[in-house]
């Protein structure tokens, strides 16, 4: 065929690649507006609430540090949920995986004695492995017994909660010497260093960012990531190509669980230095919001984790100073999820608008597609 007919090679950068970030921002803006309306409806001063919220999140070094402290586990849990989605799996069990990760990391942290270069990585790894195993269970049930992962992961959360409670209850195997229902403190050799004096921010955030890069690489550049995405989009086509959807399902859930486990491990090793009941204020659940808001892309996940981390730390100040209930932030978070989920409908509109814009500009396809006639 006539080669001149072939359209030119597409450009590296197109305005279309901005669609996702725009979508991301729009969801947040709309949610904040809706949140304000909500506050007003309940006779609250929304402007003041928001300004206190921002002050609480960014107002001082300590506040900003707390924002990053909350961001850290949310990056892990967001990545965890996003990775599952790429294989078509909805991991609602991050809470449970996180509990197990924290428990194991704490145990390795206080019970074993070794040099830091081994101790810290081992504690992290232990948390990831056990979280991964806890995640692989629903993966296996889904792949080989067709039990839907949403149901099993939620059920397993309750088991994890119960196990965690038992571990640190009076007479429990991990109960420390203090009066608290908590494990003993972990050794210094297992701790993640504080990296910003005057705040509680630990090197955990570096691990988190590293994992974001790794997960991106894994999903989009490795063979197994490729296979998972194939299964996620079309199990039939994947099977045709010789990829085993069952194996991939188990692996994806295991890796998703491992990220959840790391979230718990990093909380223990970097923030609390011990395991105690309810150390997670729902980071696992928020991971779902983070993943969706971040459009399942690791970069988006980091951005979304930061946003939710900000809301979390800001809300504490908001409650303390302005006397506005923290629950307002839960509502705001819910609104953000809602609008970021619904604004998928915006995508075609945005793309359409950009295309129209392009047609007026230099990217006119009419000129790129040359006719021979």
């Amino acid at each position, binding site marked *: 065929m006539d080669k001149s007919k072939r359209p030119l090679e597409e450009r590296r950068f197109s305005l279309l690649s901005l669609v996702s970030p725009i979508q991301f921002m729009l969801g947040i803006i709309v949610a904040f507006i809706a949140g304000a309306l909500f506050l007003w409806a309940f006779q609250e001063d929304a402007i003041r609430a928001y300004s206190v919220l921002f002050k609480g999140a960014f107002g001082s070094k300590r506040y900003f540090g707390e924002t990053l402290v909350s961001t850290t586990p949310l990056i892990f849990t967001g990545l965890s949920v996003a990775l599952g989605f790429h294989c078509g799996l909805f991991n609602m069990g991050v809470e449970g995986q996180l509990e197990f990760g924290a428990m194991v990391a704490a145990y390795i942290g206080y019970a074993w004695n070794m040099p830091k270069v081994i101790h810290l990585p081992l504690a992290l790894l232990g948390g990831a492995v056990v979280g991964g195993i806890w995640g692989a269970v629903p993966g296996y049930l889904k792949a080989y017994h067709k039990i839907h992962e949403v149901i099993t992961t939620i059920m397993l959360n309750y088991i994890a909660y119960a196990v965690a409670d038992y571990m640190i209850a009076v007479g429990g195997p991990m109960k420390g010497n203090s009066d608290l229902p908590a494990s003993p403190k972990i050794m210094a050799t297992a701790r993640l260093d504080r990296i910003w004096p005057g705040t509680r921010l630990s090197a955990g955030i570096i691990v988190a960012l590293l994992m974001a890069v790794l997960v991106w690489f894994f999903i989009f550049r490795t063979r197994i990531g*490729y296979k998972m995405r*194939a299964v996620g989009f*079309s199990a039939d086509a994947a099977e045709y190509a010789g990829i085993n959807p069952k194996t991939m399902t188990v692996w994806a859930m295991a890796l998703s669980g491992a990220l959840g486990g790391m979230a718990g491990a990093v909380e223990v090793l970097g923030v609390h230095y011990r395991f105690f009941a309810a150390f997670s204020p729902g980071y696992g659940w928020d991971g779902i919001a983070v993943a969706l808001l971040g459009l399942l892309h690791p970069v988006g996940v980091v951005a979304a984790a930061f946003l939710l981390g900000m809301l979390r730390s800001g809300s504490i100040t908001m409650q303390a100073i302005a006397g506005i209930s923290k629950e307002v932030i839960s509502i705001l978070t819910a609104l953000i999820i809602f609008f970021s989920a619904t604004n998928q409908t915006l995508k075609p509109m945005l793309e359409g608008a950009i295309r129209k814009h392009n047609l007026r500009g230099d990217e006119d396809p009419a000129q790129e597609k040359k006719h021979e006639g």
Partner: protein
Amino acid sequence: MTTAIEMRNIVKRFPRVLANDHVSLTVEEGEIHSLLGENGAGKTTLMNILSGLAAPDEGEILLHGTPVHFRSCLDAIKHGIGMVHQHFMLVPVFTVTENIILGNEPKRGFWLNMKQARAKVAELSERYGLKVDPDALVRDIPVGMQQRVEILKALSRGVRIIILDEPTAVLTPQEVRELYVVMRALREAGHTIIFITHKLQEVEEITDRVTVLRDGRVMGTAETQDVDEAGLARMMVGRDVVLHVKKEKHSAGEVRLQVEHLFAKDARGLPALKDVSLEVRAGEIVGIAGVAGNGQNELVEVITGLRNKESGKILLGDLDISEMTPRERMYAGLGHIPQDRQRRGLVMNFSLIDNFLMGFEDSPPFAKGPMLDYAEAKRFSRESIQMFDVRTPGPHVLARTLSGGNQQKVIIAREFRRDPAILIAAQPTRGLDVAAIEFVHEGLIKLRAQDKAILLISMELTEILDLSDRILVMYEGKIVGSFKAGQATPEMLGLLMAGSNIDQAGGQENTPTYRNGEEGGVDHG
């Protein structure tokens, strides 16, 4: 004759593709008007615009002389224009009647008036000869009937102008005949039909006028009686096309694929393969003819490892692959062009690069340790796009943005480039334009010349007759006939496919061998 539709200077752009470039089309009332054109010429896009599914960037539509703007399909239907898409849009778990009335339900107070609905369906199906079983579930009826349901659905909403997008691609020759009858009845009743097809002989047979699109532009409109098939082909692709490939004599070698006493069940658990045995030799094309749903699909799936067998054996040369995974069979030299390109053959939401990688992702040069070498994959995609003339702005676009025929070309390219020793090709040219068919046919002949073994499954009798060295006929999960090239006539095959006794069909002495499931190949010369 009055003008039913006039489309003027329609322009439709997609990112970096000009799908319709100032297209003007006039359709007279009461005619069957064919739209013809290469894969990616813009036929579906143009009809999506006419049926309200897409909005044009420029241009106008006149319906009986008055300008109209459709905001949706429903809007177009209200104006009397309906489209039957190539991929049907029916609810599988609803009955035929429920599907037809969906969105337009006759009501009695709060309740559905099923009696009235059924009467209406019966009346319409009677009037136009659209035979359907009103109470069957859509998932249980053959594609041909599903298509009639789609047509009935349009008619029940008072549509006067019906667009059929490649309706015959999924039909058997018999069903195509039946469709013709319906189309003629509709024309008698004053309906206007726009008919998209890639089969020139269908254009000749059923249409009044034909418009040819190429590269998004109109090449011309003609009275069908004034043009012949070769002329149409030239108009479409701009050169002469070989409509029937000639193949050299080529002697077959040792047995490459051997299927022995295969039994298997279909998705509903009913017996689909009942003692099927066959063999394909190196340098041989064996064609399987048969009406869709007689076990061909299951046969392909069992051979390629996508479906479990009940019993039997599959051998590649001396290697028993019966218990192997699909991937192991692929590595053992088995290639597969699946019949369902959108479900099996492609990941629609993958880029072309990722689609070209399928099945290659664990082998050099693409696999680099645990990584994929995307630079290499991109190069491979570019080459394949070039070699197989896939019309696309580039390898980064998602597979679902390609036209139907170009999607098929991606699969063909990938499977040919896999260089399999044994190729199972199921409906390899479905939805392809004449030039692409020529290309694929020549490709298959070339593989045969390289001593590959090819099992061809096709509903196109001409394709089977043109390409095969041996022809097997499948009926109700059994092989009921076997012919050497040149022995079979379309009539004989047609009779066997319909389940007639072999003796009435012309007597083939070696058929009983197959029927009893004994070793085949007696007829091999």
